[in-house]
């Protein structure tokens, strides 16, 4: 592995973590979707670079799925849904931006400590990729936890899956079956969500999870 190849891969994976942080503090749905599109675009760039470096042409497929499907189609569709539902207002975050960002920093530190410590034997690129990927996964979870709105929870989930794709491409020579399945599962997940969103709107005229949370199951 040449120095430059490693540096570029490192830069792109690091950028993905950075964009994940940007997801954390967006307080408008439009902005959140735009940042998510950027997230997917960075992922596509990173996967393309991996495909080139590893000389693994099948990874180009994964990269183009990330670019076309995740960075372009999904954000556009979600934009439309938001307009249709008339919810392009502010997102209520559960805790303040400062605390959330601190939490994010803590999670990144945690994933660095865990992943770098257990992988001294693996090649440096895979190591750092895994550490970054775990950070993206954990920040995705944090986004899901801190948001009340169904659309932004979905965005959090999709950023989490981006982290998984980063990990899968970083693991050199991982069979194609998994990459396609990852992309495919995003597709299925999205269809499911789409159905859900429409049903939810149909029934309650709201996609705010707080409205759903009124139901606690045991109340009479």
């Amino acid at each position, binding site marked *: 592995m040449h120095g430059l190849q490693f540096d570029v891969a490192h830069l792109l994976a690091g950028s993905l973590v950075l964009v994940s942080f940007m997801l954390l503090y967006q307080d408008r749905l439009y902005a959140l979707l735009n940042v998510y599109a950027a997230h997917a675009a960075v992922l596509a760039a990173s996967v393309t670079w991996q495909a080139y470096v590893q000389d693994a042409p099948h990874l180009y497929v994964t990269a183009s799925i990330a670019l076309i499907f995740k960075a372009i189609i999904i954000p556009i569709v979600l934009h439309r849904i938001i307009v249709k539902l008339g919810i392009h207002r502010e997102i209520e975050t559960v805790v303040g931006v400062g605390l959330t960002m601190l939490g994010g920093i803590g999670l990144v530190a945690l994933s660095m400590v865990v992943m770098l410590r257990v992988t001294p034997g693996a090649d440096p690129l895979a190591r750092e990729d895994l550490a970054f990927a775990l950070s993206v996964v954990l920040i995705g979870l944090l986004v*899901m936890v801190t948001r009340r709105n169904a659309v932004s929870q979905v965005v959090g989930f999709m950023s989490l899956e981006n982290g998984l794709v980063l990990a899968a491409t970083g693991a050199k020579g991982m*069979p194609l*079956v998994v990459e396609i399945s990852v992309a495919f599962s995003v597709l299925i997940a999205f269809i499911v*969500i789409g159905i859900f969103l429409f049903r939810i709107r149909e029934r309650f005229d709201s996609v705010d999870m707080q409205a759903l949370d009124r*139901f606690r199951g045991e109340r009479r």
Partner: protein
Amino acid sequence: MIDALTGVLLIPAVGAALLAALPGYRLTARLNVLAALATFLTAVSLFVVEPRSGPYLLVDDLNKVFIVLTTFVSFTTAMFSASYIGHEIDIGRLTPTFVRFYHAMYQVLMFAMNLALVANNIGLMWVAIETATLTTVLMVGIYRTHEALEAAWKYFILGSVGIALALFGTILVYMAARPVVGEGLYAMVWTVLVTRAAEFDPALLNVAFVFLLLGYGTKVGLAPLHAWLPDAHAEGPTPISAVLSGLLLNVALYALLRFKMLLALNPAALAPGPLMVTMGLISCVFAAFMLYRRRDIKRMFAYSSIEHMGIIVFAFGMGGPLANFAGLLHMTMHSLTKSAIFFTVGHIAQVKGTQKIADLGGLTVTHPVLGWGLVLGVVAIAGLPPLGIFMSEFLVVSSTFARQPWLATILVLGILVALGGLFLRLNGVAFGEPRGPATPAQASYVPMFAHLSIVFMAGIYLPPALVTGFENVAKLLG
């Protein structure tokens, strides 16, 4: 070349396509039963002629047990589902279009569960479990009421997070295998992984197992990751509650057991047992106490499933031939009993028009067969002698007492607390003042009593062939 192994996948796949295309619920309900029966018979034939395992599909003693159990309960549930869905159409709760969708999804779920069980590839297994999850999400939300949608949404979000963590663990296992096995397909194949597991990097395997335990553990319904389970059980159609409790939890458990075997083969990796024992105990005791505050009957039995999955995971976590045997037996008995209970509860909820425990009463007077069926089911699930669950729980507890008396004490506490909770509620529902309509139920009692009689028989006499089979699997699990 089509052998029994591809058969258990092909039949549900074809069934799903057919059922999606055909109109008319009477016909499709029967076809659903037929497809499930054919799958079950194919699965049984695995014991007669064992097909060869390839890089994608695998058959061994461990998954044969799971496949036969899964296909059997699928078959009986399909029978129950036929009468259940008929009633739902009559009262207009489901439209024919939704029923067509429901039947197709039922077969897709069978396909996904069978695929997860026969997959020889950790990636393929993950895909199958994800498919099974998404299918059940759709089925839980099928009534489209406020509650059903919230339950499906909660299940979807928590299930996806669990599945995502499991994929990360899967990737880590591949990373651990790659330097030893080499790049590509074979670093994800079970049969290759187990032969070389001793050479893997132990630290990487440890981290992988933590992710897999949290990920698949969410699907098993282990506390504190169980939040989706009661909602999904209570709000979906009852046949799906039966399949969720009886089968899907087992499939996730199967994935966990496979990875546990992998870790056990590496002497330097951490022992997976204590982690599983801890989570199992927490689930068992927590769910036992939660049983007391339930007001919805399906929700109550969902908590009882968490309790029993806790006991099963505990048993497998203890390890050793005896505890593994007990765990396997308990898993089988729980699947059969819990699905029988859900069959009964489904019919009860239909005739009474409610699932609220407070509105149910005196069932043994108004509907003697259903009422006594429920009593028998609860007696079985609470672990009273001479039924099957008593025997398996007794084995779990006694094998633990010999090794870790303290752990056994906590486990017994959980079981007894659960028994109290179940009987407290059963008393009002089955005896007490009769409440609600007393119109006779149009129910099919065959699946319910088939399960209960197997459980009853198992409590008295276990066929030697079954015992040797389970003993072999128990040795395999280490």
